[in-house]
């Protein structure tokens, strides 16, 4: 029974020679439940019944559904019209019991994680891991030491049952469904994801990870992550995403909510590497109370279209946030990224860094909002936008927006657009590197800032992914 799991050695992963090999084509997996069709009250009730949810959660879902139908389609979104919600599965439960042992998982599901070295990374570097396949958490485990410290890491469905007070207090409150249509859709259909609670003063040494995998075409994934860090605590949460190459598209509409209590520190890292068949919509927001720190770092590498704008509300005196988003649009894809910071208390500080790389027909967009409320005395906001365009067929746009109502605040914005020159390519060629290799080195260089505090294994896999992406000039997708 204790047969060892054959995990893909990270060394093996580094030997992949193409993006196709890395992702693989979509493969069959057994499903227990699949719910498809127009999103109605019946569908919501069925999902809630499958999850054996308390009544208050069903009511929250139904309120969100109502909002979804009433809210207008956001006008600034491009490409979203490709999504036909009626042909997408709103809920897919794979045929797999949730487990704490990789060996318990059916092979076709385990394979998704092994292919990317997840079990090995978990064993060596993580405090806890939640793995979501389709709509459900199939694996969840936390190291024992954390349990002793009172840390909670569990599938969010379990938290709904066990810690209803915490969930009621934070869930869909940091990011309310009324914000926009896709936030409402998310709250109506949410399924899978992780809940983390770090008690007062506890510093979680190793990162916690949630890994999201979409296994097939025309699936919707609406996972939810909620991290609550109590006073003076620290936690680093990493989310990773992947999917195989699909015959048709799939849709991801996830949500992350962070709550950093007084003097708490949350670091949240996203390594998004969906295959080119995923339309990826994110709803990410954190609240930082007095003296608290929220750091978002996001490496947005894959997907067909990505919309991601990690946001922080600085709600207590002296709260700080840093928000680094690096987007790569390599091929006929769109990266619509940015950030939002609301300074709602005195002496708060924010730093937004946006770096984009457009190549091979890719389009990168930065949208940012810095708002400084009246009374947020002596607050400081710093925005840096750096766009790098690697060829003639690619584009980058920057839409910064500042609303400053406090005269003692300081807001600075620096924007820069660079192009890769023929002389730079020739210089690297004279050292033996072809165009794709030269570009991949430049891109990896831009990612440095988000890679600096990740385990080396993550970094080398990511570096390999970038090299593969750029070695297939014109051939990706």
């Amino acid at each position, binding site marked *: 029974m204790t047969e060892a799991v054959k995990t893909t050695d990270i060394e093996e992963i*580094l*030997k992949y*020679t193409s993006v196709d090999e890395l992702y693989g084509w979509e493969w069959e997996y057994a499903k227990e439940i699949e719910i498809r069709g127009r999103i109605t009250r019946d569908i919501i009730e069925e999902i809630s019944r499958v999850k054996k949810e308390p009544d208050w959660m069903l009511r929250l879902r139904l309120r969100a559904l109502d909002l979804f139908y009433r809210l207008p389609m956001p006008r600034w979104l491009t490409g979203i019209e490709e999504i036909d919600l009626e042909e997408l599965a709103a809920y897919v439960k794979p045929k797999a019991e949730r487990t704490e042992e990789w060996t318990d998982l059916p092979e076709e599901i385990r394979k998704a994680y092994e292919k990317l070295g997840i079990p090995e990374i978990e064993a060596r570097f993580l405090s806890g891991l939640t793995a979501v396949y389709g709509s459900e958490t199939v694996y969840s485990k936390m190291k024992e030491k954390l349990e002793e410290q009172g840390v909670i890491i569990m599938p969010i469905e379990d938290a709904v049952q066990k810690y209803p007070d915490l969930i009621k207090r934070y869930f869909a409150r940091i990011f309310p469904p009324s914000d926009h249509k896709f936030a409402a859709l998310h709250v109506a259909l949410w399924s899978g994801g992780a809940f983390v609670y770090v008690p007062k003063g506890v510093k979680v040494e190793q990162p916690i990870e949630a890994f999201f995998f979409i296994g097939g075409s025309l699936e919707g994934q609406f996972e939810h992550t909620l991290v609550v860090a109590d006073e003076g605590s620290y936690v680093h949460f990493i989310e990773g995403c992947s999917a195989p190459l699909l015959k048709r598209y799939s849709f991801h509409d996830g949500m992350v909510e962070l709550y950093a209590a007084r003097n708490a520190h949350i670091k949240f890292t996203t390594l998004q590497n969906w295959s080119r068949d995923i339309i990826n919509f994110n709803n990410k927001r954190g609240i930082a109370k007095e003296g608290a720190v929220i750091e978002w770092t996001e490496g947005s590498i894959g997907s067909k279209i990505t919309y991601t704008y990690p946001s922080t509300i600085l709600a207590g005196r002296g709260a700080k946030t840093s928000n680094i988003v690096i987007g790569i649009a390599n091929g006929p894809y769109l990266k619509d990224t940015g950030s939002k910071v609301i300074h709602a208390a005195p002496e708060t500080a924010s730093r937004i860094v946006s770096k984009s790389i457009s190549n091979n027909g890719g389009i990168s967009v930065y949208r940012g909002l810095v708002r400084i409320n009246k009374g947020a005395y002596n607050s400081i906001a710093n925005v840096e936008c750096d766009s790098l365009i690697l060829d003639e067929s690619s584009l980058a746009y920057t839409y910064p927006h500042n609303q400053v109502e406090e005269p003692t605040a300081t807001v600075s914005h620096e924007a820069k657009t*660079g192009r890769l*020159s*023929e*002389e*730079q390519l*020739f*210089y*690297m*060629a*004279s*050292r*033996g*590197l*072809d165009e794709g*290799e030269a570009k*991949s*080195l*430049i891109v*990896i*260089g*831009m990612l*440095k800032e988000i890679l600096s505090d990740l385990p080396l294994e993550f970094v*080398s896999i990511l*570096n*390999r992914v970038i*090299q593969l992406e750029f070695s297939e000039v014109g051939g990706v997708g």
Partner: protein
Amino acid sequence: MLEVKDLSVGIKADRIKNILYNVSLTVEPGEVHAIMGPNGSGKTSLLYSIMGHPRYVILKGQVLLDGEDITGLPPEERSLKGLMLSFQHPVEVEGVRLSTLLIAAWNKRRGEADLLKIGDARMLRDMRQLASRVGLKPEFLRRDVNVGFSGGERKRSELFQALFLRPKYMLLDEPDTGLDIDGVKLIAENISRIAEDGVGVLLVTHYARILNYVRPDKVSVIVNGRIVDTGGPELAERIDREGYKSYGVIEVD
């Protein structure tokens, strides 16, 4: 042997403009061949053409590397076959550390799929040692390629890269400009050492100063895109005394 045979080159602009005419020269392994000429005579264009810069169009002639015709190859392939160009004004490459560039170039030469792999600790040790040999501190390796480098640091870095990558033939474009006399001596010493190790060196220089420290085996003079004179070290000495007057060129300093 690196051989340039009857090479005529144009540069792509609105139309193709001729810049080199019927240039022939050879560099044997272990030999230093100096190319001298006034400003704008085509020295850099010659090196760029040999290295395969995409804007330089070969109108006639060939470049042969150990007998193999490389005239049609892209620059990265020429590099892998053993050619290397040290630039007079190397371009800044933001985001790419000098060490990263060299690790990638080193792995590429060994057919390693992952260009960033550090499979051999000796490689890093060599890198640090060679950097110090040209007067660069190890911290230098962590800086982005040429970004914020002084003129002298660029020269040292260009030579250091050649020492590390060990080409068969080196194309050096004004390797001593911007250096003080100690810097020139150090660079020259390393060039001589490279040549003694069997590397063929094609050294482009306007002034003869560096040739006081690197003794060339051959000297060719290029004026207006044509080789107008060839000889031994005595030719460099004459140019040092007289400038390019005898070739009908009067330069004002």
